[in-house]
């Protein structure tokens, strides 16, 4: 499985460079996420922009990463879902579970807003 990894601010950004996330590569994705969190990664953003297709085992792999991040008081959020991929999250109600951002810019912008909210709070 082809995964690009990048650090921005206090986040690890994973870009899945696969057209399909299905039972052929979802176990690998799940393991990758768990190892990343084990090795003390910060908050994780999974960029799904290149993904045209996801099946229920792909959702399961992301859910596994999400639960593991929560256990460690970290966040795992999603960005860049194509409409067909988004529809899978809605069908399985998982869009209520994950924080889903339209794209990476929005994740980072949201962060800035949260930061400045924190700052004005601490004043």
């Amino acid at each position, binding site marked *: 499985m082809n995964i690009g990894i990048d650090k921005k601010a206090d986040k690890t950004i994973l870009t899945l460079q696969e057209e399909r996330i299905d*039972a052929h590569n979802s176990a690998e994705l799940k393991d990758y996420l768990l190892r990343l969190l084990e090795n003390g990664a910060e908050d994780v953003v999974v960029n799904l922009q290149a993904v045209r*297709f996801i*099946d*229920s*085992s792909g*959702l*399961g792999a992301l859910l596994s990463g999400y639960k593991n991040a929560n256990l460690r008081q970290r966040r795992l959020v999603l960005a860049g879902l194509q409409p067909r991929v988004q*529809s*899978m999250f809605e069908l399985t109600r998982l869009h209520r579970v994950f924080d889903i951002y339209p794209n990476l810019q929005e994740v980072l912008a949201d962060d800035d807003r949260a930061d400045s909210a924190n700052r004005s709070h601490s004043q």
Partner: protein
Amino acid sequence: MSHTDINVDVVVPNQTRYLGLIGNIAEQVAKELDGYPGDRDMLAYHLNLALTEAMVNAIEHSAPGDEKKTVRVCIHLEDNNVCIRVYDQGQGFDLNTVPAPNFEELGERGRGIFVIRNVMDSVNYRKTDSGNVLEMRKRLA
């Protein structure tokens, strides 16, 4: 035989690496539906999805690890109907006792049949001479 009448019959080793091939073939077939009134791209995704979910189950429940085993998939498209069949050589199961997923519990599995039921109009599972078959139908008009 009606204007559009396409039959595709594919046999591959029972390995997940062929999921993409089967899914892509389904999408190619969906492209032929010139007259389809709905969102053709979404239809293509749904056929791809139903096939993928069914084929994963067939691989898991057939004979794990046995490289000699195969999975057979059929796609039959007519003007107003698509029928997808996925065969397995396993013990079989009772489709009607598969529970809907519990949306409050974040289990990692158990959404395959639910997804299939949602994107197709009817689903049934039965024994045949050539193994068990999950048969999924969708009306197109």
